C-alpha cells in the first residue's frame, strides 16, 4: 500500500486503543502521517478526535498500541512535537502576560533552574509578530478575545520550534480575521516543511484547508489525500446513517457559524 514516491512518515500510530472508565473510545487506530502536510481530523461529536491527539501525545494512557515520531518513541522526540490544546482547557484569569504564555513554549528546551533569557524573549516576540499579536505582548491574558487567545496559543506553539504540530480545534469560536490568519500561518508552516495535524469541525472548509484528511468515528474510517477520501460515501460512513447527513451536517455547521 505504501507508495515509494510518498514522503517519509513523520508520525506512525500503530494499533492504538484508548478507553475512558473501561469504555473504549478509540479502537485499533493504525495510521501513518506523511511529512510536510496539513492534515485534518474530522468526525462527529464523541468520535474521539481530541482523545486521539491526547493519546498520541501521551497525555492520557492508551490500552494498547504505540506511537513513533520520526521512527523513535515519542518520549525521545518530545522536542519535535508541538501542541495547541483547546482554548477552554485553561484558566484565562491566570496571572500571566501574553509573552509569559508564549515563553512557555521554550520551557521544553530549558533545564531545571534555567530561566528564559534574551534569546527566548526575542523568539517569543517574533512568534507573537507572526500571529499579529506583537502589540499585546504585555497584556494580561484575561483581557483577550477568543481569536486573540487562539493566536497566543499558536504563538506559544511556534516558540516550541517543533517539526510536527497537533492542534485541537483551533478554528472554533474565532473571528473571520483570525481564521484566515491561522490558515495563512498553517500554510507558511507547511512551506517550512512542518507537519500540522488539526482537529476540525467545519466540513465546508475542510477540503480547502487540508492536503489529507483523517475520518474518525471511534475507528479509523479513512485516511488519505483529500481528493480521494472527502467523498460522500466515506463521509456517510463517518457521520453515519442517512444519505442526507452530509448536507445536514454542512447546514448545521453553516447555521452555527456566527
Amino acid at each position, binding site marked *: 500500500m505504501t507508495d515509494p514516491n510518498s514522503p517519509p512518515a513523520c508520525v506512525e500510530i500503530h494499533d492504538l486503543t484508548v478507553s475512558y472508565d473501561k469504555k473504549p473510545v478509540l479502537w485499533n487506530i493504525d495510521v501513518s502521517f506523511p511529512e510536510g502536510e496539513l492534515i485534518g481530523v474530522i468526525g462527529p461529536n464523541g468520535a474521539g478526535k481530541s482523545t486521539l491527539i491526547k493519546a498520541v501525545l*501521551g497525555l492520557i494512557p492508551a490500552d494498547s498500541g504505540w506511537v513513533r515520531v520520526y521512527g523513535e518513541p515519542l*518520549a525521545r522526540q518530545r522536542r519535535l512535537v508541538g501542541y495547541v*490544546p483547546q482554548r477552554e482547557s485553561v484558566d484565562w484569569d491566570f496571572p*500571566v502576560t501574553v509573552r509569559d504564555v508564549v515563553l512557555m513554549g521554550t*520551557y*521544553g528546551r530549558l533545564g531545571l*533552574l534555567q530561566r528564559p533569557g534574551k534569546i527566548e524573549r526575542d523568539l517569543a516576540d517574533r512568534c507573537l509578530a507572526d500571529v499579529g499579536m506583537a502589540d499585546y505582548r504585555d497584556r494580561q491574558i484575561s483581557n483577550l478575545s477568543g481569536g486573540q487567545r487562539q493566536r497566543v496559543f499558536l504563538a506559544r506553539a511556534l516558540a516550541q520550534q517543533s517539526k510536527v504540530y497537533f492542534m485541537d480545534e483551533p478554528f472554533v469560536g474565532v473571528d473571520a480575521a483570525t481564521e484566515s490568519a491561522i490558515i495563512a500561518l498553517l500554510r507558511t508552516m507547511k512551506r517550512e516543511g512542518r507537519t500540522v495535524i488539526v482537529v476540525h469541525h467545519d466540513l465546508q472548509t475542510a477540503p480547502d484547508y487540508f492536503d489529507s484528511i483523517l475520518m474518525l468515528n471511534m475507528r479509523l474510517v479513512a485516511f488519505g489525500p483529500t481528493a480521494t477520501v472527502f467523498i460522500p460515501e466515506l463521509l456517510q460512513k463517518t457521520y453515519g446513517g442517512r444519505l442526507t447527513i452530509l448536507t445536514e451536517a454542512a447546514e448545521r455547521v453553516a447555521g452555527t457559524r456566527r
Partner: protein
Amino acid sequence: MARFWSFQDGSVRTSAAAMLLLGVSCGSLGCFVVLRRLSLVGDSLGHAVLPGVCLGFMVTWSKNPLWLFVGATVTATIASLLIGTIQRNTRLKPDVAMGLVLSGFFGVGLMLLSLIQNDSRGGQGGLNQFFFGQAAAISAKDLMLIAGVTAVIVAGVVVTFKELAVSSFDEGFAASLGLPTRRIHYFLMALTGMAIVISIQAVGVVLLSALLITPAATALLLTDKLPRMVMLSVLFAAFAGIVGLNVSSLSAEVLNGFLDVVLTQVGRSGLELSASRMSTSPPTGPVVVLILAMTFLTALVFSPRYGVATKLFRRWIRVRAVRNGMGGASE
C-alpha cells in the same frame, strides 16, 4: 509595644523569626495552591495533622518537635492518599472526598486529644495550643525545624518555579513538553504538607489554611504576574504573622490599658470598661487570620485594577464623560 519592636527579648525574637519564615513558606506555596484550585486540600491537610500531632506527643509524652513533626507528616500523607483513592475508585467528587477525610481525621484527633488530657502522666500542658496556635510558645528547637523546612520549601519552589508555573496554567501542555506533571503535583502537595506541619504551633490546625489561602488570594487581586504574586503573598503572610504575634503577645495589662485609653476617649462609663477587659492574651491564630482578612478586604475594595471601589469609580468617570459628551452635543 516598643519593647516588642526592639526585638530585645530572646523569645520574642524566636517567635518573630518563626512567623517570618512561616510567611515565606505558606505565602509562596499558597499561590500555587490557590491557582491550582487546591484550597480545600490545604484545609483538609490542616485538619488531618491533628491526630498525627497527638500520636507524636504520645511517643514521648512531651512536646518534642521532631516527633510531632513525624506524626503530623504521617497522618497528612495518609489523608492525601486517602483523598486520591476515594476520588479515583468511587463516583464521589473531590470536594466530597476532602470533606469526608477532613472531618474523619479531625474527629480522631479530637478523641486522641481528650485521651491525652485525661491521662495522669502529665506533660500535656499547652497541647490545646495546637487548636488556635500560640506563637509565643515556639521554642528555639521548634525554630530550627521551621528554618530547616522553610529552606527546603524555598529551594523547591525556586528550582521548579518554571515547571510549577506552566503545569499550573496548562497541565496538558506541560505534559506534552515531557514534564512529569503528576510528580510535580505530588511534589507541591508534599511541600504544602510540610508547610502546614510547621505552622501548627503558630496558627493552630483550625485556621491553618488561611495562612496558605488568604495572602495568595490578596496578592492575586493586586498583580497579573506570577513572580510578583508570590512576592506579595510572602510579604502579606509575613506581615500578618509578625503583627499578629505582636498583638497577641501584648500582655493583657497593656491591651487593657490601651482599651482604657480608647474607651475613655470615646467617653464610655467605668462599668463598660471593666466588662471589656481581657483576662488573657488571645491565641495567635485568630489574630493573624484577622489581619490577613483585613489586608484581603482592603485589596478587594481598593485594588488598582480589580478593586470594587476602583471599578465603581471608573464607571462613574465613564458615565460622567458620556453625560458631558451628550450634554455638549445637544447644546
